């Protein structure tokens, strides 16, 4: 039976892992490769490296970090953050990443999704969507870009459907309200996307307790759940989380 995936996310700045609360006020959490291999050993199903480095110069270090991660890991990993062109994607995939995620650049030029999926395959194109509540839109959620700072006026569900149609292989849905709160995932919008799309949905933002993961898989019908700080600061162990989920009747590896 296909297992629900647990995906630790490592926010990377200048080669170090950080995690922000509501995307700001960064706090250092340690060496990227060290943490990545620890998660892999503990049974993480996949990893996401999110490059939050601002400068072009520092982005080059991301490629060498991906190369190093690929040597160490034998589970799939996705790299996101600041990816704008096919060449950016090629460099990261050549370095050994399995998937890339695109967010703001896809909103600005949706054809990027189509060109990446036809060149590299939809299996490696993850469309990341940052969602914020906006009751004036049909799905009640608006797509945000630039790390959640800029409104777009675009409805989350219609954008996700368009992304799927253009060749995205998975959706990584982050709730802006929930991110960093440890108050549980946003199961409502997760369920809406998961039941409306035929590609997998990874839920992100709000993980605080083991029960939150159970709920996002049952109520939210997510295919995978992503979290950062609960894993980074050792609040929830991955093995412990998986044995809890197994006891609750959820299929995990």
């Amino acid at each position, binding site marked *: *039976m*296909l297992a629900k995936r647990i995906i630790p996310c490592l926010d990377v700045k200048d080669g170090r892992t950080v995690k922000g609360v509501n995307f700001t006020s960064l706090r250092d959490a340690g060496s990227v490769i060290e943490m990545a291999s620890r998660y892999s050993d503990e049974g993480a199903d996949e990893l996401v490296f999110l490059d939050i480095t601002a400068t072009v110069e520092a982005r080059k270090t991301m490629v060498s970090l991906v190369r190093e991660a690929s040597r160490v890991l*034998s589970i799939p990993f996705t790299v996101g953050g600041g990816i704008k062109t096919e060449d950016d994607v090629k460099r990261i*995939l050549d370095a*050994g990443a399995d998937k890339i995620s695109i967010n703001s650049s896809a909103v600005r030029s949706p054809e990027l999704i189509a060109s990446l999926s036809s060149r590299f395959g939809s299996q490696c194109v993850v469309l990341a969507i940052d969602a914020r509540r906006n009751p004036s839109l049909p799905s009640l959620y608006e797509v945000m870009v630039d790390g959640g700072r800029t409104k777009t006026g675009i409805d989350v569900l219609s954008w996700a459907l368009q992304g799927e149609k253009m060749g995205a292989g998975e959706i990584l849905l982050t709730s802006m309200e929930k991110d960093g709160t440890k108050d549980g995932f946003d199961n409502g919008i997760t369920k809406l996307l998961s039941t409306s799309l035929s590609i997998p949905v990874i839920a992100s933002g709000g993980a605080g307790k083991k029960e939150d993961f159970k709920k996002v898989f049952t109520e939210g019908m997510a295919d995978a759940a992503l979290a950062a700080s609960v894993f980074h600061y050792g609040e929830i162990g991955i093995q412990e989380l998986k044995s809890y989920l197994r006891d609750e009747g959820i299929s995990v590896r």
Partner: protein
Amino acid sequence: MIAVIRYGAGNVTSIMNALFKIGADARLTADKDEIERASHVIFPGVGEASSAMADLEKSGLKDVIRSLKRPFLGICLGMQLMCSFSEEGDVPCLGIFPERVKLFPKDRGYKIPHVGWNTLENTSGRLFAPTSDEEYVYFVHSYYVPYSENTSASTRYDGLCFSSALEKENFYGVQFHPEKSAGVGLGILRRFIEL
């Protein structure tokens, strides 16, 4: 020396890294002589079937692969290309296995691609250990090979039972990615290079 075939189908960094991890002497090559001389050949593949077949045809690798007598392992698209025909681009493939590659049926309420960790069942043959049943491996695919007489492992995806591995003489295929399947996957690669 293990030859990993280089052709126009996707990323091979991970498979090279995995072979390095298990201490294999592997080389990425498109050279026919080198492939023919290799002790083992690995045929990776992430991409689209008809363009990959066109590439194999053009480079002349198609006939080289079919005539190999040493252990040969196709991974993911590599395994699908070893079959007789693929619905992906409606293309005749290498014909090592008689099976036809099909698209997962749509509108059955489950998601395509089949992506993530799923279990092996009915394992048999030389790539697997007695304990391999129920072990999880990592899949990413939208097309599948039906269960058949050459199936050496099967996997279920929402009621559909498909071939997660094939074996026939010196030819082996795995639908999942052993290079991405943690210790279980590295064990499968190790058993292959020890053949």
